[in-house]
């Protein structure tokens, strides 16, 4: 293999992988605090992308459109939590929860189709369409935004969970909901905040990635699948695992697309998911398993 090609694949793999990592972190935060495996996670990525495109078309500055899209998605997530998560969390079995979150996913997809149409829609890059040459490879400026954005989000989440009262309350609730209630934490409110945070992370991933990929109402499922695969790959329930799993999946896809064919990259993700569930259900770093 040419070293130059490998560097190129690595760069694009890490870029895509950091998007998966952010989506997987959203999965993890929601799962830990509510016990719900949120199969609507990817729909929030899609929704934020389409909303940003729509807001830009209303002549709103790009940065404001990106922020607005994330805020609207956060509001939608809060409503969905109240209507579908609160009634079932910690009570229903996995099968019921999967059915409910899949139902939400389909509903969001249909609403997006009605509101925004079926065309794939482009969002301008944040700061132009330039690219930077690094040794033998090139990386677009938007990819740098993605990498930087993901890094800032991860650092922010780390500080949030380790240093803030709200973050500690969320960790405590994730670990032992009853004990969290006994120290005075309102665990139902924590569940809401965690759901909005998790879906909001999906939305942030959506506005970061849409300038590179365009947005279309059907793309949510792909992000759900990749985010879920990344979370499972790293170890479900572990935030560190979500990041490692996301990057690993991105690299795996980039190298298989480069050396085999780009048509196989989704297949690779699925095969990786099945393999990890069969041979190492705890994931790369995790010890927890679903169910």
């Amino acid at each position, binding site marked *: 293999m040419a070293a130059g090609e490998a560097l190129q694949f690595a760069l694009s793999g890490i870029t895509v992988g950091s998007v998966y990592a952010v989506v997987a972190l959203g999965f993890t935060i929601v799962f830990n605090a509510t016990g719900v495996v949120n199969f609507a996670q990817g729909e929030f990525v899609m929704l934020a992308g389409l909303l940003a495109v729509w807001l830009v078309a209303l002549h709103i500055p790009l940065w404001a459109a990106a922020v607005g899209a994330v805020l609207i998605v956060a509001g939608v997530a809060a409503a969905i939590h109240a209507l579908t998560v609160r009634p079932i969390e910690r009570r229903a079995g996995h099968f019921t929860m999967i059915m409910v979150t899949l139902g939400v996913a389909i509903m969001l997809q249909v609403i997006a189709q009605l509101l925004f149409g079926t065309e794939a829609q482009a969002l301008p890059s944040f700061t132009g369409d330039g690219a930077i040459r690094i040794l033998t490879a090139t990386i677009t400026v938007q990819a740098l935004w993605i990498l930087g954005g993901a890094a800032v989000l991860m650092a922010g989440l780390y500080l949030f969970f380790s240093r803030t*009262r709200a973050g*500690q*309350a969320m*960790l*405590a609730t994730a*670990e*032992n909901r*009853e*004990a*969290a*209630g*006994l*120290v*005075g*934490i*309102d*665990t*139902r409110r924590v569940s809401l905040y965690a759901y909005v945070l998790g879906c909001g992370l999906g939305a942030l991933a959506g506005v970061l990635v849409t300038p590179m990929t365009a947005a279309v109402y059907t793309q949510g499922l792909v992000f759900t699948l990749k985010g879920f695969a990344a979370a499972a790959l790293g170890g479900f329930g572990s935030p560190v695992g979500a990041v490692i799993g996301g990057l690993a999946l991105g690299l795996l896809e980039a190298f298989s697309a480069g050396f085999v064919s780009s048509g196989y990259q989704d297949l690779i993700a699925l095969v990786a998911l099945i393999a990890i569930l069969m041979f190492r259900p705890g994931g790369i770093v995790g010890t927890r398993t679903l169910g």
Partner: protein
Amino acid sequence: MLECDALEVAYGRVIALRDVSLRVQQGQVVSILGANGAGKTTLLRAITGLERPRRGRVLFEHREITHWEPADIVHRGISHVPSGRQVFGNMTVMENLRLGAYIRTGDRRLAGDVARDMDAVLELFPVLRARVRQAARTLSGGEQQMLAIGRSLMARPRLLLLDEPSLGLAPQVLEGILGALQRLNREHGLTMLLVEQNAHLALDFATYAYVLETGRIVQSGPTSQLKASDVIVQIYLGLKH
């Protein structure tokens, strides 16, 4: 201070508590004795809102708290050391104690109070001081029990509920913990309601006791009287009245 009035709790069709009434007065140490499965844990859980009583009322300082959320009950001044300790294992000892003061850490003006209380808890259980940066799951059973009690004290409760603090502990470790609890009661007037399977321990520690048998209170009285009666034999052998 605490009054339970004809409480009834059921899990589906299985009735766990039936017509349970009890009183705890300010400054008192009261214990609830009973065999495994008598409903002791359920009773504490009903008081702190972890179970929803089907009938009856719970009053704390003359205010009804039946059906309140656990978090709201902590705010009122009751802190519950649950059975099996339930410390946050992946978090450090320090983080566990800070979370114990959760109802006060939202207010910056109370930061000094919280720091002083943290110091007082580490004074009470000195072995924890060397472990403040350690994950709680790496502690021994006795240390975890101390941490669970310390975490509850960080809420500055007026009433402390203790669910089988003796479970799985070596006698010397248990003695240390009971000594600390006794000091809290004598020096700070902290009121306690203790649930115990170890009847000797419960009768020595408390001044008043209730005996639970299959969900009902079958006997109650000052522990000095109960000690003289054959109550311990009844609990262990399950003799009928």
